[in-house]
């Protein structure tokens, strides 16, 4: 679009929007605002900064106590936890090792198959699989767009 047309569009849309008068606020706005002023929400439904000072101090003290209790508890259970964790890690390492052994055993025939069939054939298979995934994703997107599309008659 050239600058003259851009300017024309700006004038046209700007003029249109600036001419819009205020919308009428729903009648409920006045009522609900006045009600909210007359019956302020209880302190526990307001933000922390709006809580009464005594409640805020009590809450702060409670949080500090909870943090201290958590710290003490951690110190107490730490040695036992460490032993349990190392035992579990050792068990997990054994599982991983056996899994790795199975994978190594399976990799041998795969390597032989690649050598036998040739790299070009394997690359073509990979490309075909990637293409199939892309087609599925594309069809899925089209399906979603079609099912969620609004009828034309709703548009201005």
């Amino acid at each position: 679009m050239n600058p003259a047309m851009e300017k024309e569009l700006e004038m046209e849309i700007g003029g249109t929007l600036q001419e819009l008068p205020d919308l009428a606020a729903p009648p409920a706005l006045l009522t609900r605002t006045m009600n909210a002023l007359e019956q302020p929400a209880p302190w526990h439904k307001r933000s922390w900064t709006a809580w009464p000072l005594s409640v805020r101090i009590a809450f702060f003290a409670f949080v500090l106590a909870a943090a201290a209790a958590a710290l003490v508890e951690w110190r107490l259970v730490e040695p036992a936890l460490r032993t349990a964790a190392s035992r579990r890690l050792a068990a997990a390492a054994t599982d991983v090792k056996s899994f790795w052994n199975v994978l190594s055993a399976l990799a041998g025939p795969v390597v032989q198959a690649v050598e036998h069939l040739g790299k070009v054939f394997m690359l073509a298979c990979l490309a075909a699989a990637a293409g199939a995934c892309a087609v599925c994703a594309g069809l899925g997107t089209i399906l979603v767009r079609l099912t969620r599309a609004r009828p034309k008659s709703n548009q201005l």
Partner: protein
Amino acid sequence: MTDAKQFEAFLRNYQNMVFSTAMRLVASPADAQDISQEVFLRAFERFGELAGDPRAGGWLKTVAINLSLNHLSRYRARWSFFSELFHRDEAGQETELDYAAPDDVVEDLAVAERRRLVEQALHRLPAAQRVPLVLFHIEGMKYEEIAAKLGVSLGKVKTDIFRGRAALRGKLGPRLQDHWRPGA
């Protein structure tokens, strides 16, 4: 007059302006009403300063814009994926909009209808285009101010406003060119 009565009169005086500002930015009547209520609750806390101050309208507008932008940024991250995928959820809503009654004459029906169409087309724009467009053309902010307010680059603001204008014209199509004349 008691404080409550004074504040009610103050609220009646500014409610259309505050609601319009929020509504055009968030494009949702329920959210615009929540934001307007919050604006007036904040105004009540400072009613001593605002009552009788000619700058009260400006203060209310600024708070309404800020709260609307906060609201949009709070929910943008949560909903943007789905709204982009489905062309924005609120785009499908048909919101009935009323204009504040004119002071002197009965509004020409054709003009009212065209304004309704413009409002609806505006609400159907994606937020990324609608918000800078409203801030620029309706709220009279400069490109630089909008960029700072939205935390985006100047170039993006200009592009979004240009796309917004083009999209709005596209949605209004011949209605705008054939019938709408500003000041009509």
